[in-house]
């Protein structure tokens, strides 16, 4: 009864509950070939093009470990402050499913490659003036395993087709501690993790292609309690937006369930996100938990990482997002918000440094890349940056020199993304060059003044607005090409 009362109070305020979130992230490793055979890992090949007797699990075949996969996984572990085990081992996880050619998955169970790491994340940096808070999210383990194939259900046909191209693609599974307390934190963690995996070139992290996948464990508990509530697993989350929405919806569902039926009414189950309906849907309960009968894979000897190899891997780790951000703050005079956005994505940070490298003012470059580029980038394929860095540098320089106006510059940028032409070509072809010749400008201004005698009168009477109006007319008459600074000083000169 007491609980019920508490519950009904809680229903009125989410602040009486705490959400506890842990993540299991699968990332496909950036290797050329699969983890246990030499088949290509290329995405988008014809079905079953990238298969061989080994990854098809034909009788008699044996796995041979791809050492590059071990190096990449260890690199991820080091970047995430894990301890990398000198000896790790592969195990078999046994279950029947058509996408699993051997009916067992080779994975790491009791001796994973990496253990006990962490990642510091910042929340509140989504907004320029947000309050920055740092949280440390624990990483309990990172292990290597093989991916499974894909089932294809052709619409309207009573068949299931199988594509084993993905079977045997190397994965790391990153398991966090239940250290996140809100969907925002989970999303921030995932963004920071993605950024690190991209920086270290461990994975290309294409969520839309499934090379980064996230399963979530979420539970709620009353504020102040230390015991965990019953956790529910949510699968099938394919974008940051989906993750935030799904977690918010699931937390809400659990709070309501808790209030109406008490903590025991939340079942340990696996749910999936139904994007269309905006809620999670039960897939299966965890009662009668499947027994995977793990045991060490006798086909693979233990993995030994000696000190020198580990050292080599450690030295091969490039500058990470956090370090880069600090450097950007130091070297380029940016604010934390700008530096955070630029370094959040390695490709963007590299692009920024290229533009600055052409001699462009660092703050100007940040403005164009953060404020103008996203507009044209959102339509680009694979989120690639559609304008070459030296073209953008050229454009910014032309604006700085007064060759074109800022507004015209935006149009030129748009045009560059479509035509891939240089800014010079576009300005020439479209006649966008700014009018900076005083003689030409004077002629336009005289023309404007003669047509707007009223405004001239107003100006002379001391109206401050009038000069703005007249400037507008001058810009209009020049079809935006007048150099505004020059135009203004000429206008003032002619009026006095």
């Amino acid at each position, binding site marked *: 009864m007491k609980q019920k009362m508490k519950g009904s109070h809680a229903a009125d305020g989410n602040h009486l509950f705490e959400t506890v979130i842990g993540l299991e992230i699968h990332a496909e490793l950036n290797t050329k070939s699969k983890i246990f055979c030499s088949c290509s890992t290329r995405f988008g090949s014809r079905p079953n093009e990238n298969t061989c007797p080994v990854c098809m699990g034909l*009788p008699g075949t044996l796995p041979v470990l791809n050492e590059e996969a071990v190096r990449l996984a260890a690199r991820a572990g080091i970047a995430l402050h894990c301890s990398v085990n000198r000896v790790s081992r592969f195990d078999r996880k046994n279950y029947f499913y058509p996408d699993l050619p051997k*009916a067992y998955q080779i994975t790491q169970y009791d001796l994973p490659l990496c253990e006990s790491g962490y990642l510091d994340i910042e929340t509140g940096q989504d907004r320029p003036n947000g309050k920055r808070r740092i949280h440390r999210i624990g990483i309990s383990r990172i292990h290597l395993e093989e991916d499974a194939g894909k089932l294809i259900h052709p619409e309207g046909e009573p068949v299931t087709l199988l594509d084993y191209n993905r079977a045997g693609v190397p994965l790391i599974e990153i398991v966090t501690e239940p250290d996140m307390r809100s969907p925002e934190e989970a999303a921030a963690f995932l963004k920071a993790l993605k950024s690190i995996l991209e920086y270290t070139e461990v994975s290309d992290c294409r969520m839309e292609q499934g090379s980064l996948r996230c399963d979530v464990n979420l539970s709620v508990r009353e504020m102040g309690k230390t015991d965990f509530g019953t956790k529910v697993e949510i699968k099938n989350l394919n974008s940051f937006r989906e993750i935030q929405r799904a977690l918010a919806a699931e937390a809400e569902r659990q709070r309501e369930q808790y209030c109406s039926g008490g903590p025991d009414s939340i079942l340990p189950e696996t749910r999936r996100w139904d994007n269309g309906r905006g809620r999670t849907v039960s897939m299966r309960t965890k009662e009668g938990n499947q027994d995977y009968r793990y*045991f060490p894979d006798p086909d693979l000897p233990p993995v030994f990482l000696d000190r020198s190899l580990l050292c080599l891997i450690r030295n091969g780790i490039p500058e990470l997002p956090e370090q880069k951000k600090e450097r950007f703050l130091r070297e380029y005079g940016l604010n934390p918000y700008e530096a955070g956005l630029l370094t959040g994505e390695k490709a963007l940070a590299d692009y920024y440094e290229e533009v600055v490298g052409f001699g462009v003012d660092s703050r100007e470059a940040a403005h164009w890349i953060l404020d103008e580029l996203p507009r044209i980038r959102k339509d680009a394929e694979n989120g690639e940056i559609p304008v070459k860095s030296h073209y953008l540098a050229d454009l910014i320089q032309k604006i700085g020199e007064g060759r074109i106006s800022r507004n015209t510059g935006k149009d030129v940028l748009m045009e560059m993304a479509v035509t891939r032409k240089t800014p010079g070509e576009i300005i020439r072809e479209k006649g966008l060059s700014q009018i900076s010749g005083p003689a030409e400008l004077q002629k336009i201004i005289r023309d404007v003044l003669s047509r707007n005698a009223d405004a001239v009168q107003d100006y002379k009477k001391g109206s401050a607005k009038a000069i703005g109006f007249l400037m507008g007319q001058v810009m209009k008459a020049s079809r935006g090409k007048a150099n505004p600074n020059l135009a203004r000083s000429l206008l003032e000169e002619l009026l006095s």
Partner: protein
Amino acid sequence: MTIDEIQKGYRDKRFSVREIVTEYLERIRKLDGTIGAFLTVCDDSALQKAAELDEKRSRGEETGPLAGIPVAVKDNICTRGIRTTCASRVLEDFIPPYDATVVKKLKEADAILIGKANLDEFAMGSSTETSAFQTTRNPWDITKVPGGSSGGSAAAVAAGFAPLAIGSDTGGSIRQPSAFCGVVGLKPTYGSVSRYGLVAFASSLDQIGPIAGNVKDCALAFQVLRGQDPNDSTSMQPDAAGMPSFPSCLPDQGIRGWKIGLPRECFRHGLHPEIEESVRECGRLFEKMGATIREISLPVWDMGMNVYYILSSAEASSNLARYDGIRYGIRAKDYNNLEEMIVHTRSEGFGWETKRRILLGTCVLSSGYEKGYYKRAMRLRDKIRAAFRKAFQEYDLLLLPTTPTLPFDIGKQHSDPLEMYLADIHTVSMSIAGVPALSLPCGFSRSGLPIGVQLAANHFEENKLFSAASLLEREFGPSGRNTPPDMPPVGKIVDNILTRGGKQY
């Protein structure tokens, strides 16, 4: 016939490869209806390869160490384009798109694949009776089993269908049938021969090895088969720069000064008295040659069977899970959903012995049981290995019986799995320890059945086995000379060629 005799005939141009292969095929055609050693006979490809070899030889080109030697390969070893069934319904129509590493090596050595030999289903058994397709009979007495699981391979050599066969041994599957059929069989050191292409039964124990009519042929075949393979991560290169080739591995002084251990545990209850007598006689012969024989105790011996059946079944339950009817092999006809398709396929595809081991293996790996069974067996395996390591610090060889009994009647043990499992009692421990062991004939019982004696050595010391075995063989005579009483002598193969008026080559 021995490999030497056949190759000498080629060199002396007494006959061609094609003639030899034709005669062996003819012998198989006439006699294998009774023996049932082969599941597939490779007439066409064998004759074609023979013709190619004859051509190669006529051009004076060099040929490999097994040139023109017909070889029977156990049907759980993948052969490209040739059905590989594991004697199971579930793989009845499976044609591998690749060659096992050992098959590749045999081909590179210019051997001729003459057929695929019968076995217990998925190599699980000691009598070849669990084969889904046929019973193989012991050429020495067709009312008896040939042993198993490499029963087809051993029977093929004993019946003179091929001078050489390839088998696989997980707990005794090469040695026990070799003993029953009166031939020489080697289970090499674990890791010395690639398992790539051997359909897995128990991956940590499976090992491919040769079965031949005499020790020298066995050693020659082993030299062709062994070696590290990039496709098998468990294959190894011996620490030494490589083994000396046979027969140079036989030291000048023979085995003078060697210490040979006779494990006391093998000579207890259940050992057939005639087998005991033969093994002890071997010990006396070794003593005469200057070796020291001492009875030793290996207390871990008694754990062997339990450890073996737990580990091998556990691994088998996982290795055999892939036969779900989805990608290859048979698929059940009646099903309404995915689960039924898998369940029906496996119910129809596997025989009883295979099912028994899958169930046993699934059980010992299940949560709640795995601590008491699988994990405990893993710890005991370490103990057994340590005990062997210690024994071989002191002893050069172990001398012991291969089997507790003489070849038994067909159908007799089929009904009692426990009795059948005991057939491996003297062979499993070496499998668990991963050390090499060889069985060779050491005479016959009063009833005329072959008796085998087993020698075991430390890791990668196959040369010691071959040395000692060849000395024993001098005493008993090579088994290849003895043709089973009811069969035409193998030597007839040459007579047939010559009397048929074939021209001299």
